[in-house]
């Protein structure tokens, strides 16, 4: 099963990378962009098909290693 994990900086945590890209978009004339947050997109290929078990395991992977809960939020979904 393929699981897509999205990791983003927590609300309130400064994202200097996002701020730099926001400035660049504005200088290109895309003034409608109000904010940019840059995170990570991780694709996991997992063995096993029980969705409940996969969800529990991926949840654990995210909170132990893939994301740092002090500075990042995560969400994930099955399928590509």
């Amino acid at each position, binding site marked *: 099963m393929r699981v897509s994990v999205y990791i983003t900086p927590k609300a309130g*945590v*400064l994202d*200097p990378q996002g701020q730099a890209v926001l400035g660049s978009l504005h200088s290109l004339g895309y003034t409608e962009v109000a904010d940019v947050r840059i995170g990570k997109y991780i694709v996991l290929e997992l063995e096993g098909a029980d969705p409940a078990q996969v969800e529990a395991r991926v949840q654990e992977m995210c909170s132990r*290693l*893939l994301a*740092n809960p002090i*500075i990042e939020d995560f969400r994930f979904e099955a399928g590509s």
Partner: protein
Amino acid sequence: MRFGVVVFPGSNCDADCYYVIKEVLAQEVYYVWHQETDLSPYDCVVLPGGFSYGDYLRCGAIARFSPVMESVRGFAAAGGLVIGICNGFQILAEAGLLPGALLRNTTLRFICRYVDLRVENTGTPWTNSVDRKVLRIPIAHNEGNFVADEETLDRLNREGRVLLRYSDPEGNITAEANPNGAAQNIAGIASENFNVLGLMPHPERCSEDILGHTDGLTIWRSVVNHFERGN
């Protein structure tokens, strides 16, 4: 006093720490490979700077699951002295042995230069021999922007656990003196019992006259002094 300098794949300040401890401090020192788990021979464990595991995912995120880190956790819980410098600080934060996290510098640049640091608490194992208000020690990092929630910051301040803050040469804490955007100019913090220290500046890079500055030595001398007084 016997030091263990942990070597992760990608550590690059391990030899500098080893050299200072052996040649300048004249103490016993050994390298500890990250796969080792016996820390019982050591009085102080050093997590050196570098780019452990290529800084993949997040700085320190993979190193914290190295076999040696489980032992570092036990060593620290038993009151053992642990110092994490730069990447070592990032590893300690990722491991939850120190609060907060280290984000990318607000400048989006790798910063490698001397900074001035106001010493906030001299009653600790790491600062007891510091004889001046401001230390001049180099930093070299891309992720030194310390963040923690308000409650954690309040607690660190209340308990005197902020040991070093980026300042101007006179010791004033200003926005201009903050190189990386760190909350409240924080450059180094200690654990609840003060036996664990994490700091972004590199004391091992300024501990000998030939290098131009010796302020880093005051930190190394403090820990030796702390150990000798206690034994």
